[in-house]
């Protein structure tokens, strides 16, 4: 694998390489408590069923047909840091045994600061993880409480330091902006503090009201909703503060120091293929995207019975795949090779409007979202493209 240690993730050569990477995602659904904004496949409490669940994941891994060596593994959730390290070891061992891991494979674990003790951190590093992504969300206690988080700002800062001490090669923090209780000062403070604790990677997400969530119910019954104009301001403040501090924005919501772009995600945005294990997880292998059942009981039951946990699959091919290549690639700062669909877009009235409005730019045959905050304007125009006459 090419040495990427110094390559910036906003460069075209970096992102094009990523398309060839092979990765795997493992979903750990357990959470101490479900956050009000979360719409992922999660299970609050039920932590007594972790071993049973890991058994099923390991069994699912062994059922997957052989594949390439993995360049990246991403254990997401849920809250994977809730799971004891010996159970996590079983998962990584199963992946390594079944597919093999590249020597410099990126192996990421998502973690909550309140779970991150030195002992746990050392143990997970010892198991083989070299990248950790913390759900920090904010360094403002008021915002943290409003987001339903269980850690303090101090715990968040400490967890980054602990991970460094354990030898994690790459440390990331997730931040959420635009909650109605958040002020501009609060957000600037969160950004400054994030820079001070010196992670290698920062993800900044606008708070989104997802249908069916607790937050959605609150907003529906009259609680204030996030304001998208304010969120646009916050996005700009993040790009500027983090940019000055040496982080390059390489995707709509992701910033990294050189060499620290998330390989697993870069692979997804490059339309690379990935395996997936665990409930609710989505895989993309041999042009087929499959999603697994979301309920804990049915996932375990279906793995045990040998039916397998896949609930539905879509074949992504031809023009459909070409459109999706643009849809994913346009989220990157490096943009995407125009290709057939890109040329088609540029030939439409929509394409001309996007260029005229300064939302879309063409740089060296690549389409680039010149105003990343309006990326979905471009993507909708892409999805509206008619396929070529066959």
């Amino acid at each position, binding site marked *: 694998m090419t040495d990427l240690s110094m390559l910036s993730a906003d460069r075209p050569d970096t992102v094009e390489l990523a398309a060839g990477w092979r990765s795997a995602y493992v979903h750990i659904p357990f959470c101490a408590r479900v956050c009000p904004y979360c719409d992922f496949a999660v299970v609050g409490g039920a932590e007594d069923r972790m071993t049973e669940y890991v058994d099923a994941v390991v069994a699912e891994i062994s059922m997957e047909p052989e594949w390439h060596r993995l360049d990246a593994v991403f254990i997401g959730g849920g809250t994977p840091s809730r799971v004891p390290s010996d159970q996590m070891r079983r998962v990584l061992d199963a992946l390594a045994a079944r597919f093999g891991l590249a020597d410099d494979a990126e192996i990421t674990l998502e973690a909550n600061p309140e779970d991150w003790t030195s002992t746990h951190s050392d143990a997970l590093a010892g198991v083989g993880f070299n990248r950790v992504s913390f759900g920090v969300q904010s360094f403002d206690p008021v915002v943290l409480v409003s987001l339903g988080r269980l850690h303090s700002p101090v715990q968040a800062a400490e967890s980054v330091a602990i991970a460094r001490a354990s030898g994690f090669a790459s440390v990331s923090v997730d931040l959420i902006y635009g909650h109605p209780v958040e002020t501009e000062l609060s957000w600037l403070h969160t950004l400054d503090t994030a820079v001070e604790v010196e992670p290698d990677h920062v993800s900044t997400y606008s708070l989104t009201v997802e249908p069916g969530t607790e937050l959605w119910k609150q907003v529906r019954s009259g609680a204030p909703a996030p304001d998208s104009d304010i969120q646009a301001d916050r996005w700009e403040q993040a790009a500027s503060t983090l940019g000055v501090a040496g982080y390059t924005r390489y995707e709509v919501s992701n910033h990294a120091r050189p060499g620290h772009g998330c390989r697993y995600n870069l692979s997804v945005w490059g339309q690379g293929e990935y395996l997936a294990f665990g409930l609710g997880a989505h895989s993309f292998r041999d042009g087929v995207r499959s999603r697994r059942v979301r309920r804990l009981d049915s996932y375990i039951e279906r793995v045990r019975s040998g039916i397998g946990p896949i609930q539905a699959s879509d074949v992504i091919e031809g023009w459909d795949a070409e459109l999706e290549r643009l849809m994913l690639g346009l989220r990157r700062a490096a943009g995407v090779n125009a290709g057939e669909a890109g040329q088609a877009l540029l030939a439409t009235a929509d394409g001309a*409007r*996007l260029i005229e409005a300064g939302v879309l730019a063409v740089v060296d045959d690549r389409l680039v979202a010149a105003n990343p905050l309006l990326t979905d304007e471009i993507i909708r125009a892409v*999805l509206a493209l008619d396929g070529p006459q066959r």
Partner: protein
Amino acid sequence: MTDQSRIRNFSIIAHIDHGKSTLADRLLERTGAITEREMREQMLDTMDLERERGITIKAQTVRLKYQANDGHEYILNLIDTPGHVDFSYEVSRSLAACEGALLLVDAAQGVQAQTLANSYLAIEAGLEIVPALNKIDLPAADPDGAAAEIVGILGGDPDDVARISAKTGVGVDELFEQIVATVPAPSGDPDAPLRALVFDSYYDAYRGVVCYVRVVDGELRDGDMIRFMATREEHPVNEVGVLTPRSVEVAKLGPGEVGYLITGVKEIDQIKVGDTVTTSANRATEALMGYEEPKPMVFSGLFPTDGDDFERLREALEKLRLNDASLVYEPETSKALGFGFRAGFLGLLHMEIVRERLEREYDLDLVATAPSVAYELVRTDGHQSTIRSPQDLPDPSEIQSISEPYVRAMIITPTEYIGTIMELVTNRRGSVGNMHYLSTDRVELTYHLPLAEVVFDFFDNLKSRTRGYASLDYETEGYRESDLVKVDILLNGMSVDAFSAIVHRSAAQDYGRTMVDRLRKLIPRQMFDVPIQAAVGSRIISRETVKAKRKDVLAKCYGGDVSRKRKLLEKQKEGKRRMKMVGSVEVPQEAFVAALQVDD
């Protein structure tokens, strides 16, 4: 053939809901024209819309055998008339086929403006009026007050005003006797050359155009070659008959008789309502009355919401026109709304009815532009023309003068609302005509108003100001020169033809501000700032800006999200497809509909 002395031809003049159809039903029952089993309430009103609105759009006619108290059998021809002012031409033709008119007034509500207007038409046509008060069984009925109003208008003795309840049947028999006694028998010359008045027509898919005729002189015989005196067209008679109300073929119709006539004619345009029929062989020299081409007064652009429906709209209009010669339309292209038609209507109700029928019976989704009237334009070079669409108005520098149609509006109202009505009329550039007290607490007001002001929500305003107590009728009274300007609405610098309007200079600012304000709320934020302006010529009179949207991007799109996020974006894309492009601005279809809505 019936002896003329045993024929009574009459129509019923009544306001909406004053009970005309119920009385007609009683008459049909009483004469055994239809059995009870066949009896549908309001037999004569057949169109769904007529039933719903309680009004008659197409006149119907029916021939009834009535056994009178004098021992003789009479033929009563009830010639139904449209009750609404929009159709006054049709009303006058129907009245011309009668010798008498039954004036039916709700005893609780008193005389209404429409009834009054139609009564004047009947009097002008020399008809004998038989006044009657209906709904005397209602607790709110004031028969003495209503009778006094009628006498105040028509003269006569309050005791001669019949008092009935069409619903319960009280007084109905006596009323029929009164019709036989009061309405004069026809007095045509059976030996003279045929003269028959065409007072209505409709299109039948199997039989072609069916004319309703009233024979005045001579005989209309099956198989004869006949001549339409105004159009000079000659056709053989394929069928003559009477309506009982079902069509019953007869060999001939004699003087005083009313029935139908079918020739081979397939197009409703070829036969003019108001024309006189004579025989080719033995031509009459003088026609009964002239006919007028129906003259559209109100115009509106009709556009399918979905551009693909244009052909369906064309077909639907063609079908409606088969039965409605007064509906005129021509293709119109709007930059904003695409392909559609500019349609002309007799009045507001006619416009509403056509629109509703298109939407209901033909399942079309339409955007209708604000109603306008026909303006007379004189250019600086002296050239004259008629302007039916704001789009056709030239640059102000080329205009010498513009005239607009005026109407004489008659409003009948309780006296307590005179003040608020005066205010409304003044706001609408109206001037006071007459004030005539019908009784101590009801008054008939006459005003002169620009038709353009009347077609624009005047009636709704009048109703709300008077809590529904005032009634309105109007008749046109020529053109007057006015200080009119065209207000254009510009989106991002581009004029949106659908929103342009010709208004009085004093109202331009208001119209401009209202439209700009509405559009600011209706147009979603775009990728760039969108200025919305109202302009008269090159002068901007109002301006707002829809600020560019700042953020339109999903926070996350990761491996587990791709399918779901794609579906979400595809769904948003479908919403985008329903947008119309005005220059580079995306405007939701609903915005056109909402912005053009008159009320609010």
